């Protein structure tokens, strides 16, 4: 539409991600490296799944729309499964790397914990996923026109931006939960992560009924976010302490260095 829509949608889609990056990742070079590696792993998964889809589309019957729709669903499911597989692969790689880093470094403790790695890798996945979802749409939102001349809904840009924001946050939460369940060998929670990812992706088939896809997605964001919060050591008590600004007393009482 114009520059205002471009910036509006960019901030909506990437606002939380930029904020997280600025405040938690940008200071620590090691975290930046792992973030980019995570993004790269997501990219590899996309490449593989798009290769498979490309081949299947070529050998399919291009005229039949039901077959194309079926192929689409197949492509979505395959992509989700491949992304989670690569996430698992990244987890395994990080475990090995951490042992190696520990051996090489002079310090006693690991420079970066698995929890932090989970968060960073999830955010990396989210960044790349958001970029691929949104950049194409943002590029077209700069022009003077808006969607609708062929009868489509006008709210395409806004809803894409909100969806992208949800997906980025979700990837981050999924990363945390995924690594945590791999550490604790809770395979059922791993399955729940994969299923929720599949659910969110399949919800987008509801588009252009954007309400039907965005509202459940945000509910899932909230739920998974809560789960990730509890997985990473949070609790209601901590939350209450923080919100009522009693954390200083708590810290002093517990002699925890900041």
């Amino acid at each position, binding site marked *: 539409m114009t520059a205002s829509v471009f910036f509006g949608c960019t901030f909506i889609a990437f606002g939380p991600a930029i904020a997280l990056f600025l*405040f938690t990742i940008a200071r620590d070079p090691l975290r930046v490296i792992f973030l980019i590696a995570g993004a790269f792993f997501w990219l590899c998964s996309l490449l593989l799944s798009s290769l498979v889809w490309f081949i299947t589309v070529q050998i399919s019957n291009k005229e039949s729309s039901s077959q194309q729709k079926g192929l689409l669903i197949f492509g979505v499911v395959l992509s989700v499964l491949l992304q989670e597989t690569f996430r698992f692969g990244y987890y395994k790689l990080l475990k090995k790397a951490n042992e190696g880093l520990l051996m090489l470094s002079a310090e006693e403790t690991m420079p970066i914990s698995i929890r932090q790695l989970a968060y960073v890798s999830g955010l990396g996945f989210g960044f790349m996923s958001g970029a691929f979802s949104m950049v194409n749409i943002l590029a077209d939102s700069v022009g003077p026109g808006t969607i609708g001349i062929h009868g489509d809904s006008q709210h395409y840009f806004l809803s894409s931006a909100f969806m992208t924001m949800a997906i980025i946050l979700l990837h981050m939460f999924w990363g945390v939960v995924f690594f945590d369940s791999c550490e604790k060998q809770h395979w059922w929670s791993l399955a729940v992560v994969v299923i929720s990812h599949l659910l969110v992706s399949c919800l987008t088939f509801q588009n252009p009924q954007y309400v039907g896809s965005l509202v459940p997605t945000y509910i899932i964001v909230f739920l998974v976010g809560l789960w990730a919060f509890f997985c990473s050591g949070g609790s209601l008590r901590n939350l209450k302490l923080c919100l009522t600004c009693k954390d200083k007393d708590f810290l002093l009482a517990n002699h925890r260095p900041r």
Partner: protein
Amino acid sequence: MKSHAMCSNMVRCLGDGNTSLQKLATSIVFFFCLSDVSCNSVEQKIYVELNNTVPCVRLLNATHQIGCQSSISGDTGVIHVLESEADLEWPLSKGPNPPYMVLLESSLFTRSIMMKMKNESNRVAGVAVVVPNTSPPEFSPHTTCPNENTGVYSDNYGPNLAHCNTTVWNPRGNGLSYEEFDFPVFSLKEDNETEFIKQCYLDHNRAVNGSAPQYPLCAMQLFSHMHAVTNTPTCMRRNDINFSINPEMVCDPLGDYNVWGSIRPYNDTVFGHKENESVVIAAARLDSRAFFWEVSTGAEGSVSGFVTLLAAAQALREVTHEAPPTRNILFAFFQGETFDYIGSSRMVYDMENGKFVIDLDNIHSVLEIGQVAVHSGTNLFLHSDPVSRRNNTVNDEVREELFSSFFVFLLVEPNVSQPLPPSSLQRFLRAQPIPGIVLADHESAFNNRYYESFYDNAANLNLTYPSDLSPEEQLEFVTDTAKSLTDVATVVARALYKQAGGNESLVNNIKADPKIVTQMLYGFLVSSNNSWFQACHKHTGRYGVLGYLGLHCFVFFCLLEPSPPEYYYLLANLTGAATNLTQSQCQKPDELPNESRQMYSYLWVQGIVPPNSTERDSFCVRASVRLTKAVSPAFELGEYASKDYSTWTESRWKFIKARIFLVASRDLEMLTLGVGVAVLFTSLLVTYFISTKADVLFSSTREPASAAY
């Protein structure tokens, strides 16, 4: 295109905005749509490209710029379909969503409406004119007095005749072609695209019960940014700026090639005055123009004239071989006459400066074929210049030789004190008083109702074919128009022969061929891709745009070797002789004893396909036909502000396109921006809060000592 079909298939899929698949598909679609540049799914949901549009471009002369200009990133406006002149109130003052893009039917494309829009141009983003298939009763965007400053009549020469004081030649002219508009004006055809635009307007832009229409509104964007500004001296100066390795040109002088041929050949390397050589010049003009770029056919304005002259040239071929006349006949076809006589002023300049095969003193007389469509009756008018006729010797020559040459038609001499119509002869008279006649079908004002307009087409000449003919049959069918033009051509040929001092008894044998005339009319006005043109031509390939001056340089490249125009080949075929030379000999005829490139042009033409074979019967044509450059002398001399010569240039541009889409309201856009900024600030605040309190939030009861945050 196959890849485009696949892309559009995928567009349907991608339309769901499906997140995971978007990621998938973006990479795939990018991957194998690399060749198809337009395959961007989101863009296709927003914009509809308009393909059949013709822009109006900018032309400059020594003092002014004319034509249309858009801003560099296109002009966007809310579409408004104008219903009447009173409806102009809406885009110009009442409408709540300026700027507007006004869509006009051609009946509303008048001077008063365009001038009103020009005055309120901050509310008008552009104009789109829908050109119908049927012509309006009359329409001429040219001025009422064509070429009034570069003709022969001025304050020094026939001042009472100058500036159309006695006769207004084009009374229907509204001068729109010579106005300057600072918004783009495009023309659309009456086809599906235009229907789509009107439907979009009806769906979104109609005001219901006087209230403002609701967003989103249907809008159009026109791109036709012209690089040149102000006038020719300015743009030529900017052409010469050499800051970078690839200097960017902003404008090009209008010009192309004149075609001339003669009965007796001239040595192409010997210029200047020729002793004891007396030449009758038969002239016609080749070009025409319209308000929009490159859509002019000039059926009555120019095609009628040069087709007649070509037919006359062909009619004279045999008799001049049998009994050559005493004087030579030179057929001259001038290009660029619309724009202040580019071609004829250049030829006169070349003659004056010894750069042409003959001199002005060699010219015995001039016969020019003007607009000879002969609509009603059988009147042909012989226009001559009253000022030079006052000079007695010239008067007598004109009287005796030229007027007596004509018969068959009812030939009428218009009022003696009437000036010459706009014609190439005026440029010859500017240099030297030469007896001359302009042959035309109008006594005073033009009969042509569509002078220099895009409606001057085959229908204007009443060129109709029976509906059940195939294109090949139409090519051969002799129409009534062709018959009347053939009669004119016969008259012209006989007059020329007599004028050149030929044998009087053979005059009645000269007859023009109606078949050739009708084939030429078909080729120039209906379809140039026909078998006869292909047979005359060097190769099947591009047939240059007729009428408009063939600009060989535009955008960033110049065609190094412009291919010679159609009329060159036609004149060669009609006046030349077929030879037995092979193709290689045809390209290098100087090696043969009797052939000389200096005297003749040798052209290898395709020929026709004989009935029983597929190979064309190609052969070499030898003709005394030449091309000479038709660029205004002002550019040779570097006098870009010249008052004597044509200084017309055409601006360059990068791309010209048009598209329609919906626009959202400003409020929605600002809301989106506001929401975005709010989300950003909120997330910055929350993240800051969380990150500073991280160790409190994410501590658990038993924390292994090795964990570090």
